């Protein structure tokens, strides 16, 4: 039974309690901000900010609307970030959400540039005392909402759902929430003809679903996002510490419970033969991979390389700027 969040934007009042409770639970540092003429801050998701509310004012038929959109990991069933990860640092939990193992992460940034929602972010290994990255530090690794993995496994709701005063963020079994979301959308249709349950089917079904009242584009969300084809990672770019860590047995060559079909990067044959190899039947989370096949090489290798180095460079620059403030 997979778990999910259902975010009802018709109930969100933009208080941003979820932004703070996320940082509080994960002990993420505040970032330095300035008011640039909007309530929205910080301006972007970052390694230190995994969940934020975007504010947008629109005018329709002479009346003002103030739209609040939550930006955080969508926990896709068919997650691009998992597919492109060259070191299997990203995967799927049995409960359906996307996992990130910063210990395996080499900071290549492929998830950052390929995520259709621009969610994963790169930052230092020591951002939060709650997340231990011990192998081959210091380095940059990726972060995003991890579904409050420890809370959820202990039977609690996510921190954001726990704090939401108007009850706009619901946590529960995904099947139930899909039903609830559909019913709520039907209710809203009379007032909001554009009402839509975003994430019911997108990318194999998201585990952060949104009840929208306006056109999808108003929220800056992609319409009909799809899993594309992506270039293989150049094995020459695998850092030596990673190869060494596997050789030393500090991390397995292929994570226990992961499945080769989740990734375009073929796991080493040795890893698949060993006792730590993938087990069990393909579950709901991995189903898409086989259907799509894996390993397709896109035609954008050069462009991607340039974009990647630019994005990483820019983010590092921002961080040093913030650190210098």
């Amino acid at each position, binding site marked *: 039974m997979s778990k999910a969040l259902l975010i009802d934007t018709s109930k969100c009042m*933009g208080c941003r309690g979820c932004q703070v409770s996320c*940082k509080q639970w994960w002990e993420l540092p505040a970032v*330095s901000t300035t008011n640039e*003429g909007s309530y929205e801050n910080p301006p972007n998701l970052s390694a230190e900010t995994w969940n934020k509310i975007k504010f947008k*004012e629109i005018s329709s038929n002479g009346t003002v609307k103030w739209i609040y959109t939550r930006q955080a990991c969508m926990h896709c069933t068919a997650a691009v970030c998992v597919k492109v990860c060259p070191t299997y640092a990203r995967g799927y939990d049995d409960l359906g959400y996307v996992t990130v193992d910063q210990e395996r992460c080499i900071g290549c940034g492929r998830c950052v540039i390929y995520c259709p929602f621009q969610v994963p972010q790169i930052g230092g290994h020591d951002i939060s005392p709650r997340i231990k990255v011990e192998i081959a530090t210091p380095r940059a690794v990726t972060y995003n909402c991890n579904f409050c993995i420890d809370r959820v496994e202990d039977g609690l709701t996510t921190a954001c759902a726990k704090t939401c005063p108007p009850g706009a963020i619901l946590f529960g079994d995904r099947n139930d929430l899909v039903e609830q979301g559909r019913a709520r959308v039907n209710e809203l249709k009379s007032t909001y003809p554009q009402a839509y349950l975003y994430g019911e089917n997108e990318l194999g079904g998201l585990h952060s679903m949104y009840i929208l009242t306006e056109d999808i584009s108003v929220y800056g969300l992609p319409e009909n996002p799809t899993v594309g084809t992506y270039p293989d990672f150049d094995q020459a770019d695998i850092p030596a510490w990673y190869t060494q860590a596997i050789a030393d047995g500090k991390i397995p060559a292929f994570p226990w419970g992961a499945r080769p079909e989740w990734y375009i990067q073929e796991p080493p044959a040795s890893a698949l033969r060993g006792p730590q190899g993938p087990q069990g039947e393909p579950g709901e989370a991995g189903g898409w991979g086989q259907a799509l096949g894996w390993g397709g090489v896109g035609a954008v290798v050069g462009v991607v390389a340039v974009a990647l180095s630019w994005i990483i460079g820019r983010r590092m620059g921002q961080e040093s700027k913030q650190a210098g403030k």
Partner: protein
Amino acid sequence: MTNHWSDIANSDCMIAIGSNPAENHPASFGWVMAAKDKGAKLISVDPRFTRTSSKADIYVPMRSGTDVAFVGGMIKYVLDDMDANPENYNMVYVTEYTNAPYLIHPDFKGAADLDGLFSGYDANKRSYDKSTWQYQLDENGIPKRDKTLQDPNCVFQLLKKQFARYDADKVCKITGTPKDTYLEICREYCATGKPGKAGTIMYAMGTTQHTNGTQMIRSYAILQLLLGNVGVAGGGINALRGESNVQGSTDQCLLAHILPGYLSQPTNKDETLEKLLQRATPTTNDPKSANWWQHYPKYMVSLLKAWYGDAATKDNEFGYQYLPKTTKPYTDYSWIALFEAMYAGEIKGLMCWGQNPAVCGPNVNMERESLAKLDWLVAVDLWETETAAFWKRPGVNPADVNTEVFLLPAACSYEKEGSVTNSGRWMQWRYKAINPPDDAEDDLWIINRLVLKLRELYTNQGGPNADAITKLTWNYGDIPDPNVVAKEINGYDLTTGMLLPSFTKLQDDGTTSSGNWLYCASYTEDGNMSARRDPTPGPYNVGLTPGWAWCWPVNRRIIYNRASVDLDGVPWDKEHPVIWWKNGKWEGDVPDGGWPPMAVDPENTRYPFIMKPEGHARLFGMGRADGPFPEHYEPWESPVDNLMSGQQNDPAFKIWDSDMDHKGTPDKYPIVATTYRVVEHWQAGQMSRNLPWLVELMPDMFVELSEELAAEKGIANGDKVIVETARGKVEGVAVVTMRFKPFQINGSTVHEIGMPWHWGYTGLSKGDSANMLTPHVGDANTMIPEFKAFLCNISKA
């Protein structure tokens, strides 16, 4: 609140006016959403489109300070509609439960007769002789009533005359509200007048902080009474208090003019206890009026027994002479008056306890100057506040300030045990989670040490009225236990030493004690009632939760609930009953007195509004300083003339005249300004501006203005701007937004801007306080400052 937070879920229609619950009372919004889930409508009335407005079914703008015009028009709409469609209203409620049928003195003249004034006005004294604002009495001294509501001197007819001038066209010319939306709101909200429907008014500081703020609230009350919305589930007049324990501190007499439990404060005219009791105890000749304040002597004597114990005897008037007396004519101990007195050098010392006047006071430049005139200042807080640091603020040479400042570090709410009382009158016990850091101590510990030291000094050295301190029953030990204090507040039977079960047991002969009669029943021989945590919804499933915490008075969750039933004791709304007379007794909530319903036992019944000597809710309120009916007046600083009458301002508020009290005029300051809070920051900011996660969300002081005004002034979104009034200027970041729109006021364009007032010169996030702009004038009845409407100009920095 007459009702309570979770009761909002029972409402059919909610008006947020003078409030912004999504931002200032976010926890309440779950109940608003629960009501909406059941089909209720949310109406947001605000000069600016807020986060509350973004969730409203209907939003409408209203120029700051024009609530009486806005709601007066709704009252007229109801009165007109009552003539046309009486079946849509609860006329029994209006006739039997309000003072609509009461006859008023034939010489009474209203604002419609006297161009905005009421009879008895003395312009020199800026006050009223209220001798014509009284009921006509019959030969038995009982007020006369005309239940046909036809007598031209009856309150109902006077009310009609008062608001006949408030037609929608004139109202919208004053408020700047689009007329079609205004009428839509009138229709939607007034539909709650039908028996079985309930509407609630959620208001806060946007209403109170005006020179006629009390009358604005009166207008809400009149509307609610006409619609039969008081006493019922999902109805009421609901003040959303801005801090977790404002209600509690008010109950325990933080206000300057009362004693705990809203007991009348002695004045120098009350030379003896007997004289005080005579003045403060209302009487009635009507046998059907409960006249609850007849018990004032029991509450007052029990209070004196709680404070002075064995030293309070019949022979020494139970220690009455230990109490300080305010002087008549009036000595004003409210905020503005205190700072005026400090500025004039009349007050030498100040204790600021969890308060930060150097940010939150009106005309704060003057109030900061006032602090420099003190000999000493004690600040008790979690951080070094602007108040504690006023002597080293920007632009001041510390060597020039002679005030000696003491900063006492205090424990925060998680670091101390005790109770808080929320807006819904729920006293909720809290426990200590962790120890405070370093030398920080809880408030009870600090006040205990202070009193022990004072007692030692007065015992050893004497002094004026030393007995007031030395005779106090103050035996809490070195480490005071809040449970002991809570028990003292509840009160004891002094003959048995047992905790009292209810204030009905209090006596005026010195055999009982109670530190606050309203809280008698909160901590009994059965234990600490406020520590109960049973979330069961309780009777009728309307969310009364009688086993959760404890609610004053006597755990009554909805006050005036005897008005929620008809004359036979049957609820107007059988789906959401509050109380119900069944088989010869009341079921449901704790009723406002156990007397039988009015038609069931006409001899032994009592009228439902038991706190008034006449037993009926007052549409006509003779207690107010500035008129028995609300009348629209412009704010002290306004860009327009009063369209309703020749009386520009409320006629009874005090105007101060120190050399720092300046009034701005529209030729120089043509723009209306208002102030407010944001959800990310807390009051004067001493807590939230020191928390990095909150500073990250709202890092800077900002000013919101319309796209139209920005274009006129050449201001772009994100620019630094200067806002200036007759009293000062502030800098902030321009937030240019379509959520503010220019008003059309009587054919002319009037701009309004707004800004939060959280900032100051200490903490992680610094900025100008909006109160450098606000005026030092206050409400005619309460003296609460007019923070919400004043004149300014704005320019690019």
